[in-house]
């Protein structure tokens, strides 16, 4: 299935393509079996790139590779790394398509066609979503003053060969898994450690709490939109059997409300859930740095006591302190701008969602009466 998502609903975040020096978008995507191939298109005035405009094909795994390399870069420890885009998930529509195929015999031709259309719309919605999410990831990077200059990012955008060689091999993947395990230990660390800075203390409390709330809201919003979809499907069956004009239109409207709501509210929540996770990651790293610094202090004291290895201990302590300070400084900046970004994004999306709801409700309330009259007369 080949799709031009030019009409796709634009970024969940505020439009990040401000800076004309580096403009990235995904104008095209192809769906082959399980794999989605994105066409990453770059337009730049920066001399660091070989050409002013170019496109490369990329797979989802390439994005993950890029994300992970950024996370593992020490220098970026004080930054909020934009969350990795989730894997494209066509499981749900695919399953439904399968069931539809099996049940074809029990439905009228009309019903089958409508169900198929509905399913295709769902497929398309998932598709649009995944393209959008991958696009936003790249745009976050390009608009970040430090990350946009990352060498690997450049390679990602420019390298016209397959990136497979550079991607995680099995061993590294295991390393990644291990890293995740360590992170959960960090979670205990972050909540336990005594915070020296008020700002970070507040942020920590806020983020931890907010994260759990937003996770809950995301889950509930998903359930809501799923129920909405079920209703849309029911209406198709009902209208097919009733064979009326008004029911037809209401189906389309109900169905579309579900998929638009899906894109707006749920995606907003989901995106920020991941973003907050990224912010939390920053806090972990800082907490680790703080722990390191405290340990180095203890080591220095011990060394002084024993009058042994004092210069190394001092150097180590200085190093830890620097790292910690650097993290705190950039961390503060990052978290402040993160908050601003979040508020703006919520505003935009809530407005758009409300406007869509109104539009759809108006459409269905005006379609039904005249169509109903028409049907009634024809009986």
């Amino acid at each position, binding site marked *: 299935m080949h799709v031009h998502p030019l009409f796709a609903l634009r970024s969940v975040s505020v439009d990040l393509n401000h800076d004309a020096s580096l403009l990235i978008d995904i104008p095209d995507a192809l769906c082959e079996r399980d794999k989605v191939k994105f066409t990453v298109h770059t337009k730049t005035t920066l001399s660091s790139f070989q050409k002013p405009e170019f496109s490369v094909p990329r797979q989802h795994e390439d994005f993950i590779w890029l994300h992970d390399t950024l996370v593992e870069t020490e220098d970026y420890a004080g930054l909020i790394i934009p969350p990795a885009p989730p894997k494209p998930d066509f499981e749900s529509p695919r399953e439904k398509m399968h069931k539809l195929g099996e049940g074809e015999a029990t439905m009228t031709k009309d019903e089958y066609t409508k169900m198929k259309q509905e399913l295709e719309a769902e497929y398309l919605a998932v598709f649009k979503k995944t393209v959008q999410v991958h696009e936003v990831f790249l745009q976050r990077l390009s608009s970040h003053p430090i990350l946009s200059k990352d060498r690997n990012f450049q390679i990602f955008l420019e390298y016209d060969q397959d990136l497979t060689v550079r991607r995680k091999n099995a061993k590294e993947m295991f390393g990644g898994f291990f890293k995740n395990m360590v992170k959960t230990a960090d979670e205990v660390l972050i909540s336990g450690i005594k915070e020296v800075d008020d700002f970070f203390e507040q942020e920590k409390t*806020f983020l931890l*709490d*907010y994260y759990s*709330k*937003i996770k*809950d*809201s995301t889950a*509930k*919003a998903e*359930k*809501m939109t*799923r*129920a*909405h979809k*079920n*209703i849309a499907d*029911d*209406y198709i*069956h*009902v209208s097919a*059997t*009733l064979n*009326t004009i*008004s029911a037809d239109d*209401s189906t389309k409207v109900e169905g579309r409300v579900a998929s638009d709501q899906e894109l707006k509210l749920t995606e907003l929540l989901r995106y920020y859930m991941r973003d907050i996770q990224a912010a939390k990651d920053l806090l972990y790293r800082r907490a680790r740095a703080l722990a390191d610094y405290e340990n180095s202090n203890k080591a220095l004291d011990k060394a002084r006591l024993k009058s042994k290895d004092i210069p190394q201990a001092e150097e180590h302590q200085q190093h830890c302190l620097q790292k910690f300070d650097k993290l705190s400084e950039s961390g503060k900046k990052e978290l402040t701008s993160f*908050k601003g970004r979040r*508020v703006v994004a*919520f*505003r935009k999306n*809530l*407005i758009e969602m*409300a*406007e869509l*709801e*109104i539009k759809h*409700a*108006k459409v*269905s*309330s005006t379609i*039904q*009466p005249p169509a*109903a009259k028409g*049907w*009634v007369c024809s*009986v």
Partner: protein
Amino acid sequence: MADTARDPPPESTDFQELEDGEDLFPEPAATQESGPASLPAEDISTNSNGPKQDSLFDDDPEDLFAEATEEVSLDSPERDVLLSDGPSPAITPITPPTSVITPRIGLAHDDMFTHSSFDEIEEEEGGDSFDIHIAVSDPEKVGDGMNAYMAYKVTTKTSLSLFKTDEFSVKRRFSDFLGLHSKLASKYLHIGYIVPPAPEKSIVGMTKVKVGKEDQSSNEFVEKRRSALERYLMRTVKHPILLKDPDVLQFLESSELPRAVSTQALSSAGLLRMVNKAADAVNKMTIKMNESDAWFEEKQQHFENLDVQLRKLHASVESLVCHRKELSVNTAQFAKSAAMLGNSEDHTALSRALSQLAEVEEKIDQLHQDQANADFYLFSELLGDYVRLITAVKGVFDHRMKTWQKWQDSQLLLQKKREAEAKLQFTNKPDKLQQAKDEIKEEIEELEGKVQQGERDFEQISKTIRKEVSRFEKERVKDFKTIIIKYLESLVQTQQQLIKYWEAFLPEAKAIS
């Protein structure tokens, strides 16, 4: 008396085995007496005897309607009535429409299926505009424990002269409704009238109510039942013949009604009904009717299709109701979650907006619930009613087939007897010959009468069905139109409310700075 009155001669070839069963269900003799008294005066003559066979009551001088009240056949519904239902139904035989209209039209007619009487009834209808409204309300629990039951108030408002007053009400319980239905079914179904089916029993539902659970689901159950009972009564009185039936009138008007015991689900009567239904189904498969009338074939096909479509639609709508309820629950949960999120949010304007969002979603949840109710009560229940109605229609067609079968059987028998008569001519036993000849002549005469009656019955039932079906179709279209318009209106209203809510929310979202 109980036995003689109710002991049908074993002419029916179908259900021999049930005669033995008869003894297992001893009906208290006392109730026999109460039977006649419970019915309006007009019907007394036909009350005191059980369902008749011609042979039994030819000599009953007091029975003015002996000829009129001929049995059509001893097929299962009547047997069923005879053996299983309480005294009143058994005692009320196939009441001819003529006797019902006795006060107005007079007793002129012999043949219970008289064509002209039906026409006269229709003329009557023309005079009286259909003005009767029945409401079922105020469900009240009476008694305690497993013997408890719900009593409903049945209020009739009418300007028809058929009734004594303009407005009156009585208290009835569910089994009373079932009793009414079984009486009507026994009287009218086999002659081709589409008798509206009564609401279904529900052991689970009722037990909950009896046990005294005052929760949401038992309230819903009672409401569902109340609404179904109301629709049932309205449908019944909309039928011009049924409206004037004395049982119906008694049901609506009289303050005391004898209990219909045999309608209990778990009774032996109930079991017998099930056996009969099964036997019926088998029987239907074996009757091969030569359909000479294309109209019937076409209509039967039409109803088969309609049945399939309605069942499908009903299932879809039930699924819709279920999902909408789910949506409502999920929306409520989301609203709570969004409120909590709003509380966590430290940016004031955003926090307020999120709280507002939570409120909007809560209101929407309520909307969804209301819509689900509309889905259900308007749409789904109507479909359920019609699925059951179509079953009744199909039943009526089946009765026509049985009537035809009986006619054919009589014809066959007649032919056999005639052959036997012819054979008798060649016997060599002169002394027995005359006796045998006389016997056979008698039998042949009798059978000839039966054949004629069978043919008449068949023609009449065919005619009745034609009328009934056209009436049914008209009603169906009207019903569906009304309900669907109401339903669509409810949908539109929901959408308009949604608009209001979201428009109120929009400025809040815009106010985030």
